């Protein structure tokens, strides 16, 4: 019985190719966006699932409750934390991962890599996928090194490099190691980097006497493993008391330590999205995927009910021939199912075709793998089919409910009654409201991203190179100083300086309290400043704005010098420069008021010799921290070099610096980045997500247009006779076009007004995450409406003009 239904279905596809194409394409686009964003969502929420132990593993994070500190959880732990926990709770299973820089020697060449110093149980703890070697014994002694597949290939040209010898230079000096195991390269959806691993030795920890058991420092990642979530929360409940016991009175006598330093046990699976802003961004992209699918299904409902009208005669005939309503409903549902299935297949090919593009636009690594993803794909198909069936119910029932007597008596095509008409207009309005909201958001996103990329960040970010390799321990102080001195003489170089405050690198950040005379000295009440050590010419190099006073001057004895590790001369008064924000936090009414004021900082006397404008070195989402600068001409601290240049290209500058480096420190790999690239790491994720959002929203808009076009074509088709009559009665083509356009554009105009408050709310929420956000740009709302209207106009104009040009005679004969 369904065979003839299929025949009629496919024939009508061929006879109404436009309708079929609109319906299929609309659906396919929607499903494709849905699949892509589901892929993205799955990627982002499946971090670390390379480890079979993922559900049992927790990482220790720290939240600091200091004035001026963010409440974000820092995912790092004090080096000796697991040792202290092991003493107090011997039954708790833990492991550590401390990322260290390492120089790999391969013949005469040297390479920079990152090596993980880990506890001996690391490989079994995580169930790291092993290719060669034994997980239990691979890290048993300190002479062993474990490599990933790509590292083995890079240094030995083969995967099975077990037994080969490697020469490494890290904090423990130049030594040889034997490769004991090869582990798989981890997939892209991980925040864990496992290239090279070796045992974390007591010799290494002994090199960190100040920090290893210093509560408040954080240098490595500490992981814990529990059998059940209940075990984990039982342990988490003990942490405040444990913290208080361990810290004792080190933070002062009048404070409860765990209220300042809170240990937070974070499920490892949640770590990637622990930043609520990131999580919200991922979820909103997921929402875009669902919205696109819903818009496509709305299209389907609209076009299917519209076509139902065109097929009313067929339905009526079938009814007079004795077709039971249930059979008719089944027929239309099967048609819907077939359409969905076809659209799903088209969508899959669209996804395949566009993934490379989307990956590069969104900075992603998405791929469809039909073997491993088959269950996932089937469940997406299930969702699409279920949603499709739901959407098909209305047209199916509307169709099957046509009264044959009325349909067959009149030559007019029924439109499904007034209700269906309202429904169609209503759904088109929903679509266009969504389209207009998308336009508002796209414009708002673009403006904000442009704003933070062009904003005055307090220093000049262009033509600024950062020589990271100066920080390498293998570089001596003499080498650092001669490199900087020689760099100043290179052609095109205007300034060269050293500092441990670098745009785009938060790894060297230190925070301490600063106390003015007469103020209480307390870790919870005194203001905290983020401090850095800078060399000569630093502020001049950055182009920092000096608000009041002066910056450091090597000629002045009193500016010299801040000694290593804060162990300076306590009888001296040191010169410091602070930022505008620090002056405010310290309670000065204005930068001027701070000038020449004394304070106590890290047990030393300091005097403020100048206040500089805030400089945005880090994430634009985060407030600029209050800064305090100390002076050190001798580059004795862990600093990097910065070079400001003009009048030559970046590659040329890099080349000059590389040559100079080769002369001064040939044993250390050269590592240079540009400040702009460094900073871009903060801007890129946001930009990538905006690209992704724009693509998704753009396609959603396209789907909306397809829907509007379908509705316009259908309504006009039904009104051919009316148009003919109007023309016979003397209406001009222009008047007919006007009539039709008003009919189609009025709902669109209304919808785009509904979009204003929605778009305003959504954009407002999104802008809230930025520390430096643009003011709500009001002009984008009318622009979004006008653009939506223009698109709608272009979409329906063809239909309206076509209809208005029809010969009245032909129109009246039309059936």
């Amino acid at each position, binding site marked *: 019985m369904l065979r*003839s239904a299929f025949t*009629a279905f496919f024939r009508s596809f061929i006879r109404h190719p436009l309708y079929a194409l609109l319906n299929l394409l609309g659906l396919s686009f929607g499903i494709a966006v849905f699949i892509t964003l589901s892929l993205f969502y799955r990627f982002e929420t499946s971090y670390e699932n390379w480890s079979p132990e993922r559900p049992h593993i927790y990482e220790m994070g720290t939240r600091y409750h200091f004035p001026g500190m963010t409440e974000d959880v820092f995912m790092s732990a004090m080096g000796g934390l697991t040792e202290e926990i092991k003493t107090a709770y011997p039954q708790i299973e833990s492991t550590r991962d401390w990322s260290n820089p390492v120089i790999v020697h391969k013949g005469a060449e040297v390479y920079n890599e990152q090596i993980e110093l880990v506890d001996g149980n690391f490989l079994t703890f995580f169930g790291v996928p092993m290719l060669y070697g034994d997980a239990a014994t691979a890290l048993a002694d300190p002479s062993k090194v474990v490599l990933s597949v790509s590292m083995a290939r890079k240094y030995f040209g083969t995967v099975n490099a077990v037994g080969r010898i490697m020469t490494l230079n890290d904090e423990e000096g130049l030594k040889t190691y034997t490769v004991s195991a090869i582990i798989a390269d981890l997939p892209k959806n991980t925040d864990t980097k496992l290239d090279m691993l070796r045992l974390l030795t007591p010799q290494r920890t002994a090199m960190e006497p100040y920090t290893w058991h210093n509560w408040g420092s954080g240098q490595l990642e500490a992981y814990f493993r529990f059998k059940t979530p209940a075990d984990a929360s039982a342990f988490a409940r003990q942490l405040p008391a444990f913290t208080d016991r361990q810290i004792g009175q080190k933070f002062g006598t009048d404070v409860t330590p765990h209220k300042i330093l809170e240990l937070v046990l974070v499920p490892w699976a949640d770590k990637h999205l622990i930043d609520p802003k990131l999580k919200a961004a991922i979820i909103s992209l997921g929402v875009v995927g669902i919205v696109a699918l819903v818009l496509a299904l709305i299209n389907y409902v609209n076009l299917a009910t519209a076509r139902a009208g065109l097929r009313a005669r067929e339905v009526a005939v*079938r009814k007079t021939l004795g077709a039971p309503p249930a*059979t008719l409903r089944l027929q239309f549902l099967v048609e819907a199912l077939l359409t969905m299935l076809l659209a799903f297949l088209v969508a899959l090919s669209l996804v395949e075709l566009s993934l490379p593009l989307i990956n590069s636009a969104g900075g992603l690594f998405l791929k469809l793998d039909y073997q491993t993803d088959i269950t996932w794909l089937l469940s997406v198909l299930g969702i699409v089919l279920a949603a499709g069936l739901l959407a098909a119910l209305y047209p199916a029932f509307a169709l099957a409910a046509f009264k044959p007597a009325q349909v067959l008596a009149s030559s007019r095509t029924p439109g499904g009654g007034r209700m269906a008409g309202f429904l169609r207009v209503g759904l088109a309005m929903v679509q266009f409201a969504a389209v207009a909201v998308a336009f508002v958001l796209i414009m708002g996103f673009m403006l904000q991203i442009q704003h933070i990329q062009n904003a005055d960040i307090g220093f000049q970010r262009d033509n600024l190179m950062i020589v990271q390799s100066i920080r390498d321990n293998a570089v001596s102080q003499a080498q650092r100083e001669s490199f900087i001195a020689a760099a100043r003489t290179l052609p095109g170089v205007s300034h060269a300086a050293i500092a441990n405050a670098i745009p785009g690198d938060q790894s060297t950040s230190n925070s301490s309290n600063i106390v003015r005379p007469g103020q209480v000295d307390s870790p919870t009440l005194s203001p905290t400043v983020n401090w850095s050590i800078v060399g000569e010419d630093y502020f001049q190099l950055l182009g920092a704005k000096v608000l009041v006073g002066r910056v450091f001057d090597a000629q002045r004895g009193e500016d010299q010098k801040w000694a290593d590790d804060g162990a300076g001369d306590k009888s001296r008064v040191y010169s410091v420069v602070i930022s505008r924000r620090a002056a405010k936090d310290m309670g000065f009414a204005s930068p001027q008021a701070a000038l020449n004021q004394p304070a106590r900082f890290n047990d030393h006397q300091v005097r403020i010799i100048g206040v500089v404008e805030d400089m945005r070195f880090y994430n634009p989402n985060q407030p600029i921290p209050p800064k305090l600068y100390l002076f050190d001409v001798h580059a004795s601290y862990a600093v990097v070099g910065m070079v400001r240049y003009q009048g030559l290209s970046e590659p040329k500058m890099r080349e000059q610096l590389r040559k100079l480096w080769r002369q001064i420190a040939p044993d250390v790999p050269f590592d240079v980045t540009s400040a702009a690239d460094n900073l871009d790491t903060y801007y890129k994720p946001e930009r990538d997500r905006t690209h992704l959002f724009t693509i998704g929203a753009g396609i959603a808009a396209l789907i909306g247009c397809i829907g509007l076009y379908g509705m316009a074509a259908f309504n006009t088709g039904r009104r051919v006779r009316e148009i003919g009559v109007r023309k016979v009665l003397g209406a001009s083509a222009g008047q007919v076009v006007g009539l039709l356009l008003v009919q189609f554009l009025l709902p669109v105009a209304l919808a785009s007004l509904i979009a204003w408050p929605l778009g305003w709310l959504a954009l407002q929420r999104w802008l809230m995450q930025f520390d430096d956000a643009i003011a709500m740009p009001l002009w984008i709302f009318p622009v979004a409406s006008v653009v939506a209207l223009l698109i709608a106009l272009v979409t329906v104009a063809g239909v309206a003009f076509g209809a208005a040009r029809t010969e009245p005679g032909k129109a009246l004969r039309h059936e």
Partner: protein
Amino acid sequence: MTNLIELQNITRLYRSDEVETTALHNISLHIKRGEFVAIMGPSGCGKSTLLNILGTIDRPTAGAYLFDGADLAKMSEKNLAKHRARHLGFIFQSFNLVDDLTIYENIELGLLYRGGIKGGRRQAIEGAMDKVGIAHRARHFPHQLSGGQQQRAAIARAIVGQPDLILADEPTGNLDTENGAQVMEILKSLNKAGATIIMVTHSQSHADQASRQVDILDGQLVASVAQVL
């Protein structure tokens, strides 16, 4: 001969907003198996309404409708559909062929919801096409045929299931004289072969060819005259 159809006091009201139209008022009519009844009357008097009720695609507001002794008023929508598939054949003024199906497939529709047929499907379809002389057009689509040919195809679709009753609403209304005469010939030969036919027409000469003429005025039966052929 027994009555195939018994209408008792059939009334059909249309209510729309404030206006109430009485399309049929108190119609009682008996039709025997094998009769060829022509229904006549001015436009809007209720002929189509009567035919739709006879065809069970419309229900009377009041009155009883017995078909072969069975009370159709009590039948469910599903059973009425079955009834139409088994016993009825429809012919319309505007043909109402399905545009997207070929002539053969359109005729096949007449068997689709009916279940099995004596002698097999293909034979039944080919037999029906032969009877109306449309076999050479089997693979064509409706829009490729003339009005007369389309109506003959529609008749083939109506008769392919060997219905007891053929209902024809102005079957010649859209046709010229020659094609109209052809359709009448086909209907008469079907009647001779045993089919009961009820036909609405505006043409006195076509009505004259029926075995009985029923006149309707303003929804009421005014005359029912048996004619000698």
